[in-house]
């Protein structure tokens, strides 16, 4: 009876660590909860997801950067987010970072972890549901940047799964 349910994606020794799927399932449940609650209204309200992401980002970055040196400037902060931070959360760096040097940053991820398992690459079946999977991360980005002193708005954009873009627009005082 052994090895009855071996699932190709999660054999032992594969890259994904066991405790990581916990976050994915929890994330899924949170989305379900928020979406089912906003069912009564016509417009889907994902702001609560975003807000939860914000509070998580705000706290986690504070713990991570506690021992670190002060960042040189805004770009330095964004670079840290795109490399080390992204890497430890989503197992890969952001693939491409663009900026106009006036406070707009666009982060491209060609294979975003939370979108990776919802269909074949290039499939359009779940395209309209995909904002649900990104709202939390938008908030996470906004929260972590806020704690590092960068007030901004973050919007996500998906054109073809599993790649996505995060538009970070810094608010100047």
């Amino acid at each position: 009876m052994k090895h009855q349910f071996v699932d190709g994606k999660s054999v032992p020794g594969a890259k994904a660590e066991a405790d990581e799927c916990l976050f994915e399932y929890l994330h899924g449940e949170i989305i379900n909860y928020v979406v089912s609650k906003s069912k009564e209204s016509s417009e889907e309200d994902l702001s609560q997801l975003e807000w939860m992401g914000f509070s998580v980002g705000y706290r986690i970055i504070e713990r991570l950067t506690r021992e670190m040196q002060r960042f040189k400037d805004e770009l330095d902060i964004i670079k840290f987010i795109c490399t080390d931070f992204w890497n430890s959360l989503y197992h890969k760096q952001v693939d491409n970072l663009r900026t106009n040097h006036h406070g707009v940053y666009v982060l491209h991820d060609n294979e975003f972890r939370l979108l990776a398992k919802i269909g074949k690459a290039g499939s359009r079946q779940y395209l309209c549901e995909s904002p649900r999977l990104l709202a939390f991360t938008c908030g996470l980005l906004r929260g972590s940047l806020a704690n590092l002193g960068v007030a901004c708005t973050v919007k996500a954009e998906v054109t073809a799964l599993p790649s996505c873009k995060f538009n970070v627009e810094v608010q100047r005082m």
Partner: protein
Amino acid sequence: MSRNVIKLDAKKVNSELFTLTYGALVSQLLKDYENVEDVNKQLERMGYNMGIRLIEDFLARTGSGRCYDFKDTAEKIQSGFKIFLGITPSITNWSVAGDEFSLCFETNPMSEFVELPDHCLSLKYCNLLPGVLRGACEMVQMEIASWFVQDQLKNDGVTELRVKFIKRLEDAIPAGED
């Protein structure tokens, strides 16, 4: 750059991400429901939904077969905690009939950063866990009940989770089929 000397520990970051996300969820639920009892219920339900998926992950990772008895099940549950949360709760307080035991947690990463405010004393903060166990066991044809008896957040010495075997589930055949 000297900053790069301190490498982020991905495992730690991920477990903190889970802990903090769970915390954000609980605080959101407390805002949404007036009654703390409803929060406990909602957490259990979410845990159940996670459990029915998590069991597949567990089976795939461990390749474990059927349990011979409930003691065997207890050990598998214990190893599940080791795999997914990195903790090993001790198995204690077996009932005489052997159908009930306790899992005692010295530490619990889920409640690492938590203090319960006075008005939430009836909140079962980790009530996701009993749900996970119920969901996971149901998927392997076992009905169990699970609840907290002691909680470190309420100044008990350990966190104690009680697990009780109820019955074996037979595969239900859809009506009208033999």
